[in-house]
């Protein structure tokens, strides 16, 4: 028993201390599951044991959940749902054996207990939790496309009632100690140092080795099934709520609802079996694979700066220069100051620079109002932001980010002025979203130190930074830029230089396809709803209004001026965009309206002028075809970027699309989507779309060759 220690004291209390060697946190890895089984055999067999306390040997918590690295491979290994059930049943039946072993078992939780960790605790007869803000409990499986399959849906529902349990499981909520105690998820809270003693005391004073649901006459609190008073709230409105939010792309919430609805009407053993079956179905579904791989495994790796050149010594920015105090500059300033970095926020006038700092003040004032910060913390943070107009103030900055207007002349000017002041080894980053880093670096006296750092708006909410490596960008510049991203607690992807890099290219294909649909005579509501049905958070027409038609048009004109290929100068939907900008003056939301109107004090609605400007056809296309266009056009662009060496890692392509563009999480991202469809069917479908909707869907010979080889973007596990 490598992962846990078993000690029996004079009172006959067995103390089981879980401590996975070589792991920063306890997780329910295969080895631990096996050891828990052995431990159980032993405590049952030993006559000197009258009760058991399970606790953690890690100071950072009880058990953080399951081992996703094992679970993520289920789909790729071709597991059947039956195999998925077997996988979880090992754990679920172990927990059942634990709670029916005849001896009282108490969980002493010194800290967070999530997923399988809470499921283990729920299978204990008594739970005490450290009264510590970090000691959260919860069943977050839904957020990775799964359900708590080792009794979580069944025991929590039976413990606190469906009405309270279901929202927690559907939301994947982390529950703080006080709430956990109030809801009855744990029996007691205790100071961290006393959790084991409290558990021991229960075992000595009032032990009960029978779970409530194993007692005669047990009824689920609040009832179960169709006729329970809470049924319409829990299951009718519960279903409406999650479906309204996720539509039909995420199988986990639906499976959770069914597992709870069906399982709680059964004896616990049958309920556990039903839960395991729903888990098995989810586990082998590609959606769970996609969500786990991209949003957990790949994102964690990116956050740990997996793409950072290892040879460059670790660095930290202490003083950050930001040129341009607009929305982006102000947002970056806020994030940097939050991370404890001193910020020099420079703009042409003091008024502008001050306004950039106000961005932080506004956010903090709201946080203060909601009790998320204190006045002292707010003042300290604001004190780190220095709004200035003189470039001399940049002296001592380790890194400077320019976030000025997307205009080559302006960018060249600020680059030169900043480089005149900052140290020769300071890094200069451009927050451009479209202009090639290589061409901007031409105006730099130190092109090796010049790099792209593309932040997304609003910066304080958007987690992604697209780091662009120019031809001359050094490894040091890349490493230091990534170190800054790490300091800001954002997720970086690393891409190579090219017009509009990666995320902007993918994003543009999305809005351009929406515009092209208008040109094709598709009704605008159908376009927007097709996008939402596909899982995009916002329709292409609505999001274009936000980024503005005016900017999209300028980018096209700039591409023409730069002599870029026809893909950039004549994208899909170009004529619609031109007409919107030039004929109809519908420039965007900021400019008073675009494809939507924004009446004061009322919900926005589609611009009624669309019907006359871009008449709808008599026959409207099938929504499924429109969904495909919107998803495929972005995936194809990602594949092109991969082919052209703009993105070199599938994980970067996926993370960039999910975190930066809003490409739906269920797909895992643009390249995961292709793998999910299957590269051969994907290419066939592209050809069909090309024949029907235009050559932009034509797969490149490279992609066709890849399809013929059946070469995936993510190789199957060995």
């Amino acid at each position: 028993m490598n992962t846990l220690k078993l000690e029996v004291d004079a009172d006959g209390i067995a103390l089981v201390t879980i401590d996975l060697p070589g792991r920063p946190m306890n997780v329910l890895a295969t080895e631990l599951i096996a050891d828990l089984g052995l431990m159980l055999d032993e405590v049952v067999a030993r006559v000197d044991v009258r009760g058991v306390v399970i606790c953690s040997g890690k100071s950072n918590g009880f058990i953080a959940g399951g081992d996703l690295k094992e679970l993520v491979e289920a789909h790729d290994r071709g597991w059947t749902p039956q195999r998925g059930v077997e996988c979880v049943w090992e754990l679920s039946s172990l927990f059942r054996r634990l709670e029916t072993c005849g001896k009282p078992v108490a969980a002493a939780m010194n800290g967070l207990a999530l997923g399988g960790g809470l499921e283990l605790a729920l299978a204990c007869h008594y739970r005490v939790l450290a009264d510590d803000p970090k000691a959260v409990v919860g069943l977050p499986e839904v957020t990775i496309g799964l359900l708590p399959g080792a009794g979580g849906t069944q025991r929590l529902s039976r413990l606190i009632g469906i009405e309270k349990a279901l929202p927690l499981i559907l939301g994947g909520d982390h529950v703080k100690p006080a709430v956990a105690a109030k809801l009855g998820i744990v029996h007691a809270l205790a100071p961290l140092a006393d959790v084991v003693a409290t558990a021991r005391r229960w075992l000595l004073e009032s032990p009960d080795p029978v779970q409530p649901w194993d007692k005669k006459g047990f009824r689920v609190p609040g009832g179960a099934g169709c006729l329970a008073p809470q049924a319409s709230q829990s299951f009718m409105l519960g279903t409406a709520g999650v479906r309204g939010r996720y539509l039909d792309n995420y199988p986990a919430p639906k499976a959770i609802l069914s597992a709870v609805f069906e399982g709680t009407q059964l004896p616990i053993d049958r309920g556990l079996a039903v839960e395991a079956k729903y888990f098995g179905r989810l586990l082998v579904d590609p959606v769970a694979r996609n969500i786990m791989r991209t949003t957990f495994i790949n994102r964690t790796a990116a956050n740990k700066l997996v793409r950072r050149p290892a040879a460059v010594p670790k660095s930290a920015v202490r003083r950050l220069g930001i040129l341009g105090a607009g929305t982006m500059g102000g947002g970056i300033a806020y994030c940097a100051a939050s991370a404890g970095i001193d910020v020099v926020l420079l703009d042409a006038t003091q008024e502008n620079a001050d306004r950039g700092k106000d961005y932080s003040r506004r956010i903090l004032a709201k946080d203060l109002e909601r009790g998320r910060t204190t006045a002292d913390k707010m003042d300290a943070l604001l004190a780190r932001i220095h709004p200035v107009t003189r470039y001399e103030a940049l002296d001592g900055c380790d890194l400077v980010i320019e976030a000025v207007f997307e205009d080559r002349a302006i960018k060249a000017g600020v680059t030169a002025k900043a480089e005149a002041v900052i140290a020769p080894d300071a890094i200069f980053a451009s927050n451009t979203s479209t202009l090639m880093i290589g061409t901007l670096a031409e105006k730099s006296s130190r092109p090796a130190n010049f790099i792209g750092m593309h932040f997304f708006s609003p910066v304080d909410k958007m987690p992604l930074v697209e780091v662009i490596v120019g031809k001359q960008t050094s490894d040091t510049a890349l490493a230091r830029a990534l170190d800054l991203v790490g300091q800001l607690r954002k997720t970086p992807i690393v891409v190579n230089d090219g017009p509009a890099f990666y995320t902007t290219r993918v994003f543009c294909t999305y809005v351009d396809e929406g515009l092209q649909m208008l040109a094709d005579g598709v009704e605008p509501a159908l376009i927007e709803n097709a996008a939402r049905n596909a899982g995009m958070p916002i329709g292409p027409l609505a999001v274009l209004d936000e980024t503005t038609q005016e900017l999209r048009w300028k980018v096209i004109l700039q591409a023409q001026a730069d002599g870029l290929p026809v893909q950039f100068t004549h994208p899909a939907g170009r004529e619609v965009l031109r007409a919107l900008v030039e004929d109809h003056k519908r420039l965007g939301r900021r400019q008073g309206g675009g494809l939507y109107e924004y009446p004061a004090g009322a919900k926005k609605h589609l611009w009624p002028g669309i019907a006359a400007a871009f008449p709808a056809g008599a026959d409207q296309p099938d929504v499924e075809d429109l969904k495909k266009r919107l998803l495929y056009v972005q995936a194809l662009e990602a594949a092109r970027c991969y082919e052209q060496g703009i993105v070199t890692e599938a994980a970067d392509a996926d993370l960039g699309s999910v975190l930066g563009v809003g490409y739906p999480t269920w797909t895992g991202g643009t390249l995961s989507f292709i793998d999910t469809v299957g590269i051969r069917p994907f290419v066939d479908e592209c050809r069909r779309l090309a024949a029907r909707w235009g050559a932009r869907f034509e797969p490149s010979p490279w992609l066709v060759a890849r399809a013929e080889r059946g070469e995936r973007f993510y190789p199957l596990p060995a």
Partner: protein
Amino acid sequence: MTSAFIYDHVRTPRGKGRPDGALHEITPTRLAAQTLAALRDRSRLDTALVGDVILGCVTPVGDQGANLPRMAALVAGYDQGVPGQQINRFCGSGLEAVNAAAAQVIAGQAEVMVAGGVESMSRVQMFSDGGACYTDPDVTWNTHYVPQGIGADLIATMDGYTRDMLDAYAVESQRRAAHAWEQGWFDRSVVPVRDVIGDVICARDEHVRPGCSMADLAKLKPAFVATGDAGYDAVMISRYPRIETINHVHTGGNSSGIVDGAAAMLVGSAGFGRDSGLRPRARVRGWMSAGSEPSIMLTGPGPLAHRLLARCGMTPKDIDLWEINEAFAAVAMRFMRDMDVGPECVNVNGGAIAMGHPLGATGTMLVGTVLDELERRNLNTALITLCAAAGMATATIIERV
């Protein structure tokens, strides 16, 4: 082939489906039993002849559970040899009962049948029978369940019915119902309900609001905004993606009322009439039930009526009067549009918006109401139809003989 004829029918007045409604203290079995008794007494029916008592009931639990029709027949003093069965086609139940009774007669398996329906909505709340239809997540997901009111609002949105148009429809329904009551046109078929000491506790429809105006209705709040916001609007729009937003225009005032009530109808062969000395009043010419898109739920009647007419070798022009259940104003308006008929021949004495919709009984009531009116106007044919939950509809054509 034998024909099925309608010989007589009765209904109770409709009491408000609330604790202060007149019929609240009347158990649903007694409510049904009083119509069964009245039907027997008016026709001097030898109940031993009755093949079956088929009653519609949409929430058959509690008071209304466990085969209410058999109990009602016994309580009404019918011969103990008369069986009973409860049927549920949601709002179409009362009409389906008539059709099922007619079917037995036409098939030669019974000489006379009693059809009808009952719903005491004040005592047995709508949806209190639970049902996978509304609560089982697997079922609701796969059938795209969305509450009816959202479906009605979606119909209004798609067809361009404004709040004013719906309210105007409702005002007219109220006016017609009040007028028909005033003229005594309902008197011959409405049987007052008596309490346990034999006093009349309810003699008129309680839900009708004579003189109800557009201004009165304008004060009411849309009923389904919160339901829509709970996620159902998004679910519905994902299914009807050409819709930008659903206009919530239905209110308690332009939707059917929640009421208590029961109805019964005597359906028999020509031979039964001859032997009993009763004159048949109308022939059941044909009927049909069908499913339609379950999510919007309420669009079945028009397409169904066209199919039924075609099967009967008829066209809409062959129908003199129409009864479409006023579940929601938009349902009736959509039906008129589907059939290309005007309000002058549809629900001429008002409908469920004014008088209420006792779910299981309404279908039978509509047949009776329109039959009385055909006779009063000396017209011949009528088509009766109701939309039903989960995307269904039932329709019947009758013709006077």
